[in-house]
């Protein structure tokens, strides 16, 4: 009912011979303990339903139901059949030590069998297994060997042996000791008589149980540790999705879909706990809603409705309305829209995060044939089916492609989601080919060529068979491995910092060694051929302080604040034009003028000339708007002149301007100037000025009274013409 699970007895020898080891070698006991630890860890983190029992033999004590009349001595059932947990891991870590007795491994096996039979009664398991970890160094009597084998067979119990030394199947019953096999240090001392006998018995058992592959279930500790170092992948039972593939309204085929590839996530998420008590219940997260007013008035969740932005407006759109108006469809569906050439469906446009394999409904042969016809026809035409896919009524429909897939032992369609228009972002990128700067030379290309040669991961071996050095899809997700490693460490060794990454995992994420050696020379060549220089990070857009930094040094306390604001605005504008201000333009001459002065890239005089030129142009238009613009220019001129402490240019320009008013019919403009009280720059403001404060003020007033029309002095206009000529 509750799915398949298996029952396993780990039967470990802790007898004294297990602690024997050659110099510098790890004793078999430690290795066996590691095997058990790793195995249990995997079980714990994979959260399997499998049940485990642990039987130790060679213990001082005896604790097993068969121990009567001095039989089955020194065998302890440490843990009965149950799901593995951290308690077991901790016990293994802290309570299992080498002990001083020896026990018959066959006796231990019988205890395990007895345990399995008793404790699995009435429950369903699809596998019963006993794993024996021993050096086979204790004397054992082969009296009941046949009975034991018979019982194993009858109960359907499988056996695995884990030994400190390798056993070859072509070997004759022990005999000559001193076999040396590098990498298996346990064999160093040769086998004792007892071991040789035991090996023979073990082989006999294994071969009787399974004539062909019996010996495959005899492992060494070393190999086992290698294989167990990875945490077990997360197991998920594939969920069947029965549906109908339809082509048009009359043709349908019963199908069933299974997720075949999908980005697997860790099943558990981190819970937030209180730091002191480590209790989840002590922490509560709460979301409150409040109005955006000064009091942040709280609003009950029930008093909120949802809305959506429509441009600058918010449109209230309650959940109920939304559900009523939303797109609805008929539910589960796998309907062909049409067929398209396989190459029109681009690999990089695959969407979603899964591939679904579609088979004919189980047990329906007719559907099987029909689907097979579709698969084969698609395959032969190099076409794919474009389908509408909907998982069920509640989920959004998708568009996708069904690719034919023909494998040696089965056929199926593979469904992958494709993009909607809305999903696509049509970005264009500058061409790389047509740009001479980026076009690599022949020598550069050949350097890349040899790099590729040296780094090919797929090679033909001597038999002409392709060998892939790095199959990514065989690597377990390193994130999970690391996660479990750290969790395990924290659980078993609390209070210590997290361990470094395991070396095998690190290595799995690097280049294979062969490759990194082979590519050294081509890489050096590449380095020579392709100069790469880190570009100094372009400075972030300058802040106003940076642009106008020098300005702030002007010792004028009054202007500081007001000017800052203004400068902010100027800065915005400068931004838009993005450094294009190289001369005083006609659009914003005043701003250009200020920017140029501040930048100090041109001499003050020249910038002033440019400005006056613009003012003259503006005044030529005889229109109030242009007058206003001219006045802002003059104001800017005046301000900057004061800042620069240079009144001469401004004063002389204004005086000449005043003289030309009547001639040019600019009286209206002059009135505006008077209204804005734009005076000459006086001595009080700038030291170098020849104009007194009074004179400056009189400048405007006097003109109003004086009706006389003074012709502009020749030298002034001359100056002006010169100015124009210079531009």
């Amino acid at each position, binding site marked *: *009912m509750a799915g398949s699970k298996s029952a396993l007895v780990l039967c470990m020898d802790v007898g004294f011979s297990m602690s024997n080891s050659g110099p510098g070698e790890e004793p078999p006991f430690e290795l066996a303990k590691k095997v058990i630890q790793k195995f249990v860890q995997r079980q*714990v983190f994979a959260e399997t339903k499998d049940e485990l029992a642990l039987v130790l033999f060679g213990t001082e004590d005896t604790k097993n139901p068969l121990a009567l009349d001095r039989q089955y001595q020194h065998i302890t059932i440490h843990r009965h059949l149950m799901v593995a947990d951290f308690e077991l891991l901790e016990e293994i870590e802290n309570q299992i030590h080498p002990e001083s007795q020896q026990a018959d491994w066959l006796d231990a096996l019988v205890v395990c069998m007895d345990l399995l039979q008793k404790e699995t009664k009435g429950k369903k398991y699809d596998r019963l297994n006993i794993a024996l970890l021993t050096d086979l160094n204790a004397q054992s009597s082969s009296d009941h060997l046949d009975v034991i084998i018979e019982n194993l067979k009858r109960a359907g119990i499988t056996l695995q042996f884990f030994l400190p030394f390798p056993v070859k199947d072509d070997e004759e019953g022990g005999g000559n000791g001193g076999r040396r096999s590098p990498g298996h240090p346990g064999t160093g001392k040769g086998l004792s008589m007892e071991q040789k006998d035991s090996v023979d018995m073990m082989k006999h058992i294994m071969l009787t149980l399974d004539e062909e592959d019996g010996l495959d279930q005899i492992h060494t500790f070393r190999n086992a540790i290698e294989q167990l170092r990875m945490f077990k992948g997360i197991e998920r039972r594939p*969920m069947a999705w029965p549906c109908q593939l*339809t082509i048009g309204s009359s*043709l349908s085929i019963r199908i069933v879909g299974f*997720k*075949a590839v*999908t980005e*697997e996530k860790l099943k558990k998420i981190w819970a937030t*706990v*209180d730091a002191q008590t480590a209790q989840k219940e*002590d*922490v*509560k997260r*709460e979301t*409150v809603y409040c109005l955006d007013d000064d009091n942040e008035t709280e609003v009950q969740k029930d008093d*909120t*409705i949802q*809305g959506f932005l*429509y441009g600058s407006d*918010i449109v209230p759109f309650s959940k109920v309305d939304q559900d009523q108006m*939303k*797109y609805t469809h008929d539910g589960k569906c796998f309907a*062909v*829209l*049409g067929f398209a050439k396989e190459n029109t469906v681009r690999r990089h446009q695959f969407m979603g995060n899964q591939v679904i*394999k579609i*088979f004919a409904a189980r*047990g329906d042969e*007719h559907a099987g*044939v*029909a689907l097979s*016809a*579709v698969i084969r*026809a698609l395959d032969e035409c190099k076409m794919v089916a474009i389908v*509408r896919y909907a998982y069920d009524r509640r989920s*959004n*429909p998708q568009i996708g492609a069904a690719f034919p897939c023909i494998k040696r*032992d*089965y056929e199926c369609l593979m469904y992958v989601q494709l993009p*909607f228009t809305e999903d696509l*972002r049509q*970005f264009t*990128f500058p*061409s790389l080919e047509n740009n001479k700067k980026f076009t*690599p030379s022949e020598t550069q290309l050949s350097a890349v*060529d040899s790099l590729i040669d040296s780094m090919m991961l797929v090679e033909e071996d001597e038999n002409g068979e392709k060998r892939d050095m*790095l199959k990514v899809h065989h*690597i*377990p*997700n390193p994130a999970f491995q690391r*996660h479990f490693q750290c*969790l395990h460490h924290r659980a078993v060794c609390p209070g210590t910092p*997290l361990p470094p*990454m395991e070396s095998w995992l690190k290595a799995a994420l690097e*280049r294979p060694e062969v490759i990194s050696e082979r590519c050294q020379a081509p*890489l050096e060549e590449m380095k020579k051929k392709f100069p*790469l220089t880190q570009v100094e990070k372009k400075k972030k*857009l300058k802040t106003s302080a940076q642009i106008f930094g020098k300005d702030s040094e002007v010792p004028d306390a009054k202007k500081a604040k007001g000017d800052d604001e203004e400068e902010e605005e100027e800065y915005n504008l400068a931004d838009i034009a993005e450094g294009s201000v190289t001369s005083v*333009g006609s659009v914003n001459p005043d701003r250009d003028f200020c920017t140029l002065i501040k930048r100090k890239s041109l001499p003050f005089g020249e910038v002033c000339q440019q400005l006056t030129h613009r003012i003259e142009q503006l005044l030529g238009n005889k229109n109030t708007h242009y007058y206003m613009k001219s006045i802002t220019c003059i104001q800017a001129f005046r301000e900057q002149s004061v800042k620069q402490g240079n009144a001469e240019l401004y004063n002389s320009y204004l005086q000449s301007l005043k003289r030309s008013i009547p001639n040019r019919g600019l009286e209206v403009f002059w009135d505006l100037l008077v209204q804005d009280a734009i005076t000459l720059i006086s001595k009080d403001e700038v030291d170098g000025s020849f104009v007194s404060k009074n004179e400056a003020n009189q400048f405007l007033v006097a003109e109003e009274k004086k009706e006389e029309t003074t012709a502009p002095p020749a030298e002034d206009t001359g100056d002006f013409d010169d100015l124009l000529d210079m531009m």
Partner: protein
Amino acid sequence: MAEWNAYYRNEDDEEEQEEGEQSGGDYKITGRDSLVFLVDASKEMFIKGEDGQPSNFDMTMQAVRSVYTSKIISSHRDLMALVFYGTEQSKNPRNSFKHVYVYHDLDEPGAKRVQDVDALQGEKGGQLAAETMGSGETSLGDALWCCANLYSDIKLRLSHKRLMIFTCRDEPHGGNSTKDRQARTKASDLKETGVVIDLMHLMKPGGFDVSIFFRDIVSPPEDESELGLQLEPCDKLEDLKKRVRAKEQKKRAMARLNLCLGEGLNVAVGLYATAVTARKPGAIKLYRETNEPVRSKTRTFHTQTGSLLLPSDIKKAQVYGKKQIVMEKDEVDAIKKFDDPGLLLIGFKPMEKLKLHHHVRPAVFLYPEEGEVKGSACLFSALLTKCSERNVFALCRCISRRNYPPRFVALVPQKEEIDEGKVQITPPGFNVIFLPYADDFRTLDPPQFPTASQTQVDKMKEIISKLRFRYRSDAFENPVIQQHYRNLEALALDMMAPEDVEDLIMPKAEQMDHRLGPLAQEFKDLVYPSDYNPETKPAAKRKTADTGGGAEKKPKVEVSEDELRAHVQNGTMGKLTVPVLKEACKQVGVRTTGTKKQELIDALIARLGS
């Protein structure tokens, strides 16, 4: 996507965006697009066409409306303005311009504006326009100046400025050279500040002669080969009217990384998401009474003391093997860290090693960042050329962000493709395909079936060839999102009912049946026996068929209370199935809220065990 976008996005736009990005990629820094509609409101615009054709003014309003509604959905942060010129009345910020009527100031568009434009359409619209604005003198120079002021009043950073003139008069000033000159000056001023001026010339009896006046006003075409002005007036207008209901995405790198070929050989690259599942825009919570938006605040507090908990008062925990394992928050992050972000070249593999079904995530696009490391583009280009020439992909380890665990990716070369019009169809670069780990595969037990005979296959081939079509990835709109936008539009604009959505991913069954003719029946005759109906589920086989999908209700099984007690005592409650347990709960009068097996068992034990 519609040409509208393509038409109105040009290259300098992109460059500006890229520049903006370097300073962080924030929206504000990237700047917003802006668009001003400058519409002629002279009498000529209101003249109806022959056979009741809408007036030019009407057509313009339609276009404006569709651009408004499109923009609202695609990029509502962009600024838009509607300005009329040649009006009798004046309305502008300082009222300094006569005969210029700013109908909508430069701002984000909203429902109100769409309704405003709606009101200007048709017979009534014409009247309304006449009442509020009227037709009067024309000074395009003033109008342009007024628009320039609109731009300069905006304190936001604008990335792209465009002005569109809608008119049917090729001589707006009737030959007044002063006004013509003024307009030209103002136009060049505008262009100087980066405003692109476009002309939407409308139908005019006798044809619209661009060369008389407007040639000097509009911005020159960006591309020499394309003479912008030769476009037929209607074409451009049609483009404008095309509705786009898709969020416009700015080109923005997801990440800038180094592609490390080896020690000291780092190529700067940018990762771009070119296909991302679009979702409905998120909802905003509003206060029911006032419809004003509310802010949400999330806080974490201690259940007992009620005091707020700081991040330092909190740890993270997971339970495995009945044990709670606790870690600091920093440690949780540290576990995920393998290395600094970047791409590490592992090696190369022939393309056929990239399996179709090795798909776990949408691909991203890789393009060099010459601005970060000079020389990147050249090396990148060489790598691209060689990979595509030799038909290999580069296998890399990719850590796309800080504290992201690594994934292996295949860099698949993609050559640039351009169409006849020299428009880029596919950009040059590498597509980054994410590869699955061992954990990402699920073990399936594929059912075995006899294979189809060649006659059966051939019949299916006939069917396939009848139903062939050219797949284009941009041909299918998402009906869910489209419906949502239409609903929103209907609510916002007080429409009676939302516009209909055509469900493009619905099979056109009728058409297909028609095309297939007798083929479908012929195929069925070949593969199915006469009494077989794929629509009905063979009930007998069903149970053994698929274990996962078994939804049939099992007949109710009841257990007596004695049996239950026995189970409780023997600790064998676990053997009972959930329906039985539920039934048992009812029987002994235990109320459970839980539906999990263990909860039911616990409840029963609590009742019976005592």
